[in-house]
């Protein structure tokens, strides 16, 4: 079942470590201070890259869910679950970093008037419901199917929610990636790219670690059963 093109875990862990160190170094020593937000703006590099990584996790979870539905292999169910799990953890971090930043630059921990923020909260709630769903079904093929289907709904909901927000059009939340391309350049962009890469690799590493642990668990269980 093991797929040979997988990057070995130690190499992955090493590159994650290097990238994260590099990103932290660049955020604090290379990136320039923001003109009107000062030092605190540096949280941006984490905030945004974590948010994008969270979306990547949700998308990955949905992709694995799709594979599960076409192949009906419990392994994909596990992978999908682990990916969504990572996404939710990162989602908490987005809410936290965003709140800290909001407190510093707007003076409030949370603004209901920001549909963009509320939208993220909605998606976060959606994936919390995913967990509730999983926990209230006995393990087995049915649980795998229900989770997979709901994870698929997630990737449809994300763009639909974005469209809804664009419609409602109430955007003080900074929009960096506009149709005209990124609004910033130079070291900011480079630092951001490194931070983003670091987050993605770190998340993938953690995903692989958790997966390996879970697989080990189920192998042990099988082994115990064979022995019994």
């Amino acid at each position, binding site marked *: 079942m093991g797929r040979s093109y997988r990057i070995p875990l130690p190499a992955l862990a090493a590159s994650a470590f290097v990238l994260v160190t590099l990103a932290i170094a660049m955020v604090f020593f290379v990136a320039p201070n923001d003109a009107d937000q000062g030092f605190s703006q540096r949280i941006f590099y984490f905030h945004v890259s974590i948010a994008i990584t969270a979306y990547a996790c949700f998308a990955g979870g949905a992709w694995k869910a799709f594979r599960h539905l076409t192949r009906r292999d419990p392994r994909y169910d596990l992978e999908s679950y682990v990916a969504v799990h990572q996404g939710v953890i990162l989602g908490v971090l987005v809410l936290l970093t965003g709140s800290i930043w909001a407190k510093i630059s707007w003076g409030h921990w949370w603004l209901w008037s920001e549909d963009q923020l509320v939208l993220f909260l909605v998606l976060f709630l959606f994936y919390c419901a995913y967990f509730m769903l999983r926990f209230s079904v006995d393990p087995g093929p049915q649980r795998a199917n229900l989770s997979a289907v709901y994870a698929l709904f997630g990737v449809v*909901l994300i763009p639909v929610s974005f469209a809804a927000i664009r419609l*409602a059009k109430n955007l003080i939340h900074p929009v960096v990636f506009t149709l005209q391309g990124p609004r910033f350049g130079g070291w900011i962009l480079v630092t951001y790219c490194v931070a983003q890469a670091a987050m993605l690799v770190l998340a993938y590493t953690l995903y692989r670690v958790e997966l390996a642990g879970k697989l080990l668990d189920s192998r042990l269980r099988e082994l115990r059963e064979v022995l019994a």
Partner: protein
Amino acid sequence: MTYARDVVALARKDLLLELRARDTLPAMLLFVVSTFVVFHFAVGSSPSRLAANGLLWVAIVFTALLGLGRAFVPEREQRTLDGLVLAPVDRSTIWVAKSIAALAFLGAAEVVALPVYGLFFHRLSGSAVAGVVLADVGICAVGAFLGAIAVATRARDLLMPLLFLPLAIPIVVGGVGASVAASPGRYLGFLVLYDALFSVVCWATFEFVVTE
């Protein structure tokens, strides 16, 4: 054609069941009416147009939710889902039929509720009504699907709102827009898109909800 005939057979059964047991519609009616009474009492007869409209959408979403949570209860109580799943029909017909039945109940509740709303608050524009109709379709399509999911879990009724509400937010945004915006066209278009998109997803994946 046989697809349509299967859907009709199943939807007929759902309507018959409600006619016999009368579980769903009374609860929905009670809720809508008390929502309006509460609001009428709380804010008097002339709340801002915006607030009143928002209330209408809250009422619609939660009324639907109340009904949708019970959509698959007969199948669960008598475990007849097995019987339907065994039949040589496309499994998605089960979802289509449930959505239609749910739409019928929600429609019935709204036939009462919308005039009452007009009476208590203010008349609804044509585009608002169009928004309600389009929203109903999306709500019932997604809701019936999630009802099938929720009923297979241990937490059931408790889970249903959690599964449903995040997915209902775009509908609320579109519906509110359609009823208050100056140019409702965009919002109605958005609702059509929502309905189409989620109906396709539900239709394509329902099979997995009811089979192992």
